[in-house]
């Protein structure tokens, strides 16, 4: 039941509350952690980073570990919402593959620790059914794609992509530029069948859509080998959004050491391998560390290679209040459009 | 009163396993005021609903104006109903309620107005046109319901206990008004009530129903004075009913024996035979008493109580076997004191003979007749 959350910070925690994205993690891995340390893990799932902010700002929700998007790290750090991590206790950090970037706003990784390899918001298309060849972002507005496009509904992903496609910076706060991006998105919207929160897998798989601007090419590939030949990421002239996820501990947490124990555990190869087996994903750890834990042929997944390629052609912005509210106003207008 | 306008032929009605109307045969004449009278649950409403066509008979046939009711929908007939609880449309005012039937028939507006106002005048509700139904008292509602039905100039008007909810005073008034309307308009009324006084006051004929069976149909006077069955005798007015067997029968007179004594009744057409089981019904106001035995009678009882009802005094007299006999007298007449022993008798023509089967202990009756009865005094 309730009430167990308020054990003191000095004493041993018997449970921690974590807030993570659905479809990435394995609850078996969490259970192993409990088995090992006796610390129970209460999992809540995010559907939006902004939700976390609301809950943290209001201070009513007591999370000990959160699974934070790169774009928000700066905001969180600037507003003192995160606690500094004790890097000494994160012994498994050394397993992390080289080249995993630090988040803007926490370049020294004092507050955050990567938990997944970077992902990309790319244009995924069905090779068989997509009627046109997509070479640029604005091709999504092609009338031939009417009713065949799925898109994520995150404002930064949408406006960033549009801004980049127009040759501006994804983090632009200039009204005129954002407005132009909005016009582009409006044109695309006439083609959009569905805006999706987290995943366009079902829309792509069941043939509802032939193109999607989405986060989960890798999930798609993991879901079934058939998809390996069926779907591909479009090669366009502008960059794609890169996003990383980081473990972090809210400043309000009273169980920091337990939280760090958890983070460290989740950097163990067998724990991560469990998650990959369930959900797929590019490995965060060095290949020699984790390969033995993964099924044979795991690295044959075309998404892994594709993601390596995309790393050089990507952008990543840190969002702040002004940016969010600017985009949100336009987003509302965009959605209000018939 | 001549032509038959409604006729029920061998009508039976079952509700599931419940036999509600049993082999009913009635002919109702044009312009007649027929009352269906009977205790609660006897099937009056059901009969009425079959005539109006809201229920179909399970067996048998009902004809209205020579045509079987099954052929037409209720809304295609010249029959209207005044429902027991008025069933006025609460969403319309008085005028609209009364006008409803005409509006449905697309009568021109001017004519509607004229006829409604005339109708309201007839039921003494001028000036009430704009009133909402909720603002009307029970008696007024009832008159609206009547006006609403009458305005369609039906050939037959069915009325289901239209006065049931009114208090005595108002009911009396409305009875008279209704009867007048019926005479004035010459409409056939089929009227349901369980109030026998109402039935006696208003009807041309009364049909007495008991548990779905038509017990007797006749004029009020005949029903009152010559009930055919014990049920009718007991139901209409107060009555002392005594079960007996015929002991002797000569000179158009029959001596009958009960378990507590003997009495004499008329038998003008010599239809009684010795040993026939019969019942005698004697109204309280016709029951006489004397201090000495009367010839042909041998019924002894003790006065238990005097009850005052207005200007009438009811004497309760208990016979030897506990049977209670009611005797009504006016205040001005002589009474027997409480505790006194009296002999009961009646004028021969006031003892109504009912030929219905019943169980009487024949031996006990003969014993009494043998003259043993005189000894036992309290």
């Amino acid at each position, binding site marked *: *039941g*309730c*009430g*167990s*959350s308020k054990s003191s910070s000095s004493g041993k925690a018997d*449970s921690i*509350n*974590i*807030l993570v994205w*659905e*479809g990435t993690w394995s*609850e078996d891995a969490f*259970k192993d952690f409990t088995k090992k340390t006796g610390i129970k893990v*209460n*999992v*809540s*799932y*995010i*559907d939006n980073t902004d939700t976390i902010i609301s809950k943290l700002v*209001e201070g*009513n*929700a*007591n*999370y*000990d570990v959160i699974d934070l998007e790169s774009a928000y790290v700066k905001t969180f750090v600037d507003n003192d919402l995160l606690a500094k991590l004790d890097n000494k206790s994160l012994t498994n950090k050394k397993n992390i593959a080289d080249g995993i970037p630090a988040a803007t706003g926490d370049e020294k990784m004092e507050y955050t620790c990567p938990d997944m390899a970077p992902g990309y918001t790319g244009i995924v298309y069905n090779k068989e059914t997509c009627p046109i060849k997509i070479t640029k972002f604005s091709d999504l507005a092609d009338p031939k794609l009417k009713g065949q496009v799925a898109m994520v509904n995150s404002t930064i992903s949408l406006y960033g992509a549009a801004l980049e496609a127009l040759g501006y910076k994804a983090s632009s706060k200039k009204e005129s530029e954002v407005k132009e991006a909005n016009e582009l998105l409006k044109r695309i919207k006439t083609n959009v069948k569905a805006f*999706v*929160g*987290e*995943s366009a*897998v*079902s829309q792509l*798989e*069941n043939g509802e859509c032939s193109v999607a601007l989405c986060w989960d090419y890798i*999930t798609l590939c993991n*879901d079934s080998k058939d998809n390996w030949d069926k779907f591909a990421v479009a090669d366009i002239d502008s960059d794609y959004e890169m996003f990383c996820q980081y473990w972090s501990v809210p400043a309000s947490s009273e169980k920091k050491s337990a939280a760090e124990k958890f983070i460290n555990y989740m950097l163990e190869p067998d724990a991560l391998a469990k998650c990959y087996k369930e959900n797929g994903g590019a490995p965060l750890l060095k290949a020699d560390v984790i390969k033995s834990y993964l099924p044979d042929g795991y690295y044959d997944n075309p998404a892994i290679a594709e993601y390596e390629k995309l790393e050089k052609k990507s952008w990543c912005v840190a969002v702040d209040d002004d940016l969010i509210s600017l985009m949100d106003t336009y987003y509302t207008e965009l959605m209000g459009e018939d | 009163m001549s032509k038959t306008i409604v006729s029920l032929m061998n009508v039976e009605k079952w509700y599931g*396993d419940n036999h509600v109307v049993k082999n009913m045969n009635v002919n109702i004449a044009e312009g007649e005021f027929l009352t269906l009278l009977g205790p609660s649950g006897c099937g009056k409403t059901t009969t009425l609903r079959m005539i109006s066509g809201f229920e*179909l008979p399970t067996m048998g046939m009902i004809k209205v104006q020579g045509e079987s009711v*099954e*052929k*037409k*929908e209720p809304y295609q007939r010249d029959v209207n109903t005044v429902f027991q609880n008025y069933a006025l449309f609460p969403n319309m005012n008085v005028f609209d309620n009364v006008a409803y039937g005409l509006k449905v028939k697309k009568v021109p507006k001017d004519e509607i107005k004229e006829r409604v106002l005339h109708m309201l005048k007839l039921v003494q509700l001028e000036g009430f046109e704009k009133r909402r139904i909720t603002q009307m008292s029970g008696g007024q509602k009832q008159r609206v319901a009547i006006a609403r039905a009458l305005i369609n100039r039906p050939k037959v008007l069915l009325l289901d206990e239209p006065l049931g909810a009114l208090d005595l005073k108002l009911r009396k008034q409305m009875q008279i008004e209704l009867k007048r309307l019926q005479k004035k308009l010459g409409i056939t009324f089929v009227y349901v009530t369980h109030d026998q006084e109402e039935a006696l006051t208003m009807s041309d004929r009364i049909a007495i129903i008991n548990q779905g069976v038509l017990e007797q149909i006749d004029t009020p006077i005949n029903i009152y004075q010559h009930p055919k069955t014990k049920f009718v005798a007991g139901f209409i007015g107060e009555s002392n009913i005594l079960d007996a067997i015929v002991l002797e029968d000569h000179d158009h007179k029959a001596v009958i024996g009960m378990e507590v004594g003997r009495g004499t009744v008329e038998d003008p057409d010599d239809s009684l035979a010795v040993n026939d089981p019969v019942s005698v019904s004697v109204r309280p106001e016709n029951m006489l008493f004397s201090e000495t035995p009367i010839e042909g009678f041998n019924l002894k009882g003790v006065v238990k109580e005097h009850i005052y009802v207005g200007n009438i005094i009811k004497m309760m007299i208990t016979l030897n076997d506990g049977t209670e006999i009611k005797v009504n007298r006016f205040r001005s007449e002589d009474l027997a004191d409480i505790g006194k022993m009296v002999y009961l008798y009646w004028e021969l023509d006031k003892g109504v003979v009912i030929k219905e089967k019943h169980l009487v202990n024949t031996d006990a009756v003969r014993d009494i007749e043998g003259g043993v009865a005189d000894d036992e005094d309290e």
Partner: protein
Amino acid sequence: MDKRKLKKKTLSVISKLYVILIFLFFYAPVVVMVVFSFNDSRANVVWQGFTTKWYTKLFQDTELWMVFGKTLFIAVVTTLLGVVVGTMGAVGFMNAKFKGKKLITNSIYFPIVIPEIVLAIATLLVFTQGGIDLSMGTIIIGNTTLVLPYVYITIKARLVGMDPSIEEASLDLGANRFYTFMHVTLPAIVPGVMSGAFMAFSLALDDLIITSFLANAETATLPMKVYSMIKKGVSPEINALTTIIFGVSMVAMLAYLIKELVNMITIRRKKARSI
């Protein structure tokens, strides 16, 4: 057969057909849900083959059962609270007269008519402004507010149908108010209480909006879990769980129906024998 009877018959057939169609609409998704609990695909959008593995998984998935247990706990406590407060209130308001009664009795209806999200937010405001930490308790409070009007209304309807003089009769016969409430009022409104409880339980069991706004970190309910899965595809495991819940309620209802049927038959028999 004559025309009227024929007309009646056709009408009744048409209306029955209509009702069957509507119920088909009601139950088609249920059937799909049940069928897809046997689907061999994680994303569970396309049928990929028959499997019972989700049931196996479900029975080992303590986590999911825990979530379900919490959901059930919240629903049960909410129902109890709602029924107790609602019943007392409905009974109390029948003959109470005080200033502000109208405001309160009218406000009881608000949760039905204002959108749930507005209620959720407004309630959250009370807790945040009052410095009260979110917990299972806050979820229960929010849900109770949501179900209270339904309980109140069903019981009130029952009370309106109840003869108020039986309460007075009890007092008249020397029973005090508590005895009267327990022995006379309560038994008379039991059907209302039951249907109110049914409503309350079903609302609380399936509530998402209020619960997710008032939930703290430890508490996730089944609807919250389902919602977090929805965009990616609800796991057939969830289908399996709901299928089981649905099955249990169906069986309960069938049992009730059979009991009724048996009752009816015995009554018929008795009747037949007595005739």
